[in-house]
C-alpha cells in the first residue's frame, strides 16, 4: 500500500535545487490501527519535544460517534514506536464547558518559559460554532482550562511563546461573511483579549490562498522574524 521504495519529495524546490520538504518513508506514521481503543481517525496533532527528548504528539482523535478529543502519543525518535495514552488525554468536558459539547479539535502547543508550562490552544465545537479555547499543562496529564478565549466562529489559534510589548499574543482566524483571515490579539493575563489586528488577509481571485487563510503550526522565532507556515 504505502510507497515503500523511497522518501517522497515535495515538488517545490529550494534555492539549492533540493526539495523544501521531504516526506518520511514511514508515512503515515500514525493511523487509527495504532490506537489502543476504538476510534475513527487520528489527525491534526499539536507537537512538542519534551525535556527527556521524546516527541509528544497531542493528536486530535475522532471517536466512532464522530466527536473529537485529544490523545497523547510519545516516541523517542518521533517516527515510530509510539506509546499512546490508553484513554483520552484531554476529553471534552461539556458539563463545565458547554462550548465543548461537540468535541475539541486541532491543538497548537507552545512552551511558555515564563510560565514554565505548555499552552494548548484548541478548537472547541458546539452549537454556536467552533471557537478557540485555551488550557495550560506542565505534564500533559493534568490541564488547567481557561475556557473559550475567542468566541465563534474562530479557530486555528496559537499563543506566541513570549510577551510582545508586555502582553501575551494569540494568532487566530475568525470568520466573517467576507472571508477568513489571520488576526492577532493581545492580553495581559491570557483571559482578557483585545488590541485585535489583522495579520494576513486571504487573497482573492485565482490565487492559491484565496478566500480562506489560517495558521498551521505555531510560528518559529528566527533572527529575521516569525517564520509562519
Amino acid at each position: 500500500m504505502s510507497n515503500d521504495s523511497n522518501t517522497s519529495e515535495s515538488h517545490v524546490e529550494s534555492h539549492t535545487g533540493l526539495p523544501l520538504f521531504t516526506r518520511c518513508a514511514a508515512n503515515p506514521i500514525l493511523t487509527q490501527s495504532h490506537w489502543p481503543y476504538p476510534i475513527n481517525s487520528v489527525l491534526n496533532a499539536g507537537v512538542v519535544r519534551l525535556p527527556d527528548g521524546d516527541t509528544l504528539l497531542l493528536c486530535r482523535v475522532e471517536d466512532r460517534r464522530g466527536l473529537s478529543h485529544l490523545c497523547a502519543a510519545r516516541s523517542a525518535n518521533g517516527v515510530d514506536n509510539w506509546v499512546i495514552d490508553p484513554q483520552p488525554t484531554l476529553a471534552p468536558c461539556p458539563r463545565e464547558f458547554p462550548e465543548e459539547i461537540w468535541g475539541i479539535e486541532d491543538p497548537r502547543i507552545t512552551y511558555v518559559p515564563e510560565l514554565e508550562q505548555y499552552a494548548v490552544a484548541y478548537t472547541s465545537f458546539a452549537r454556536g460554532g467552533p471557537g478557540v479555547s485555551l488550557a495550560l499543562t506542565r505534564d500533559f496529564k493534568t490541564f488547567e482550562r481557561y475556557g473559550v478565549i475567542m468566541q465563534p466562529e474562530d479557530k486555528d489559534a496559537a499563543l506566541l511563546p513570549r510577551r510582545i510589548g508586555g502582553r501575551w499574543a494569540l494568532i487566530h482566524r475568525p470568520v466573517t461573511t467576507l472571508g477568513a483571515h489571520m488576526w492577532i490579539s493581545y492580553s495581559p493575563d491570557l483571559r482578557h483579549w483585545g488590541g485585535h489586528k489583522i495579520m494576513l488577509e486571504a487573497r482573492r481571485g485565482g490565487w492559491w490562498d484565496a478566500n480562506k487563510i489560517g495558521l498551521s503550526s505555531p510560528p518559529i522565532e528566527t533572527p529575521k522574524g516569525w517564520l509562519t507556515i
Partner: protein
Amino acid sequence: MRHTASGSIYRLGLALFDLEQPEICLQRGDSWVFGPEEWYERHGDVNDVVFPCGQTIGADGDTINLYYGAADSSMALATGSITALLAWLDANSGSDEEWNRERGRSARIG
C-alpha cells in the same frame, strides 16, 4: 485554501512577520510550498488535505520536523530546513502587485 469545482484543497505557504510587531508581515510567499500528493494525503475522510499543527526543531537548530494531518485520517511527517525556507521566501515573495500597492498605500498613510 483553494476552492475548486470538486471541493477545497488545503496547501501550505510561508510568511514572515516582524519579531516585535507580529501584525506586520515582512514577506509573503507567492506560491504554495507543500500540497497533497501521496495517496494518504489525497484520499481519506476529507480528500486533499495536508494540515500541520506543530513541529519540532532538530538538535542542529535548523531541521524542522513538520507533523501534519493527512486527509483528516492519519498523521504524517515531512522534514525541511529553516534556512532553506527563509531563502525560498527571499526568492519567492513580492510578486503580488495588488498586495504591494496596498502596503505602499498604508505605509504612506501610517
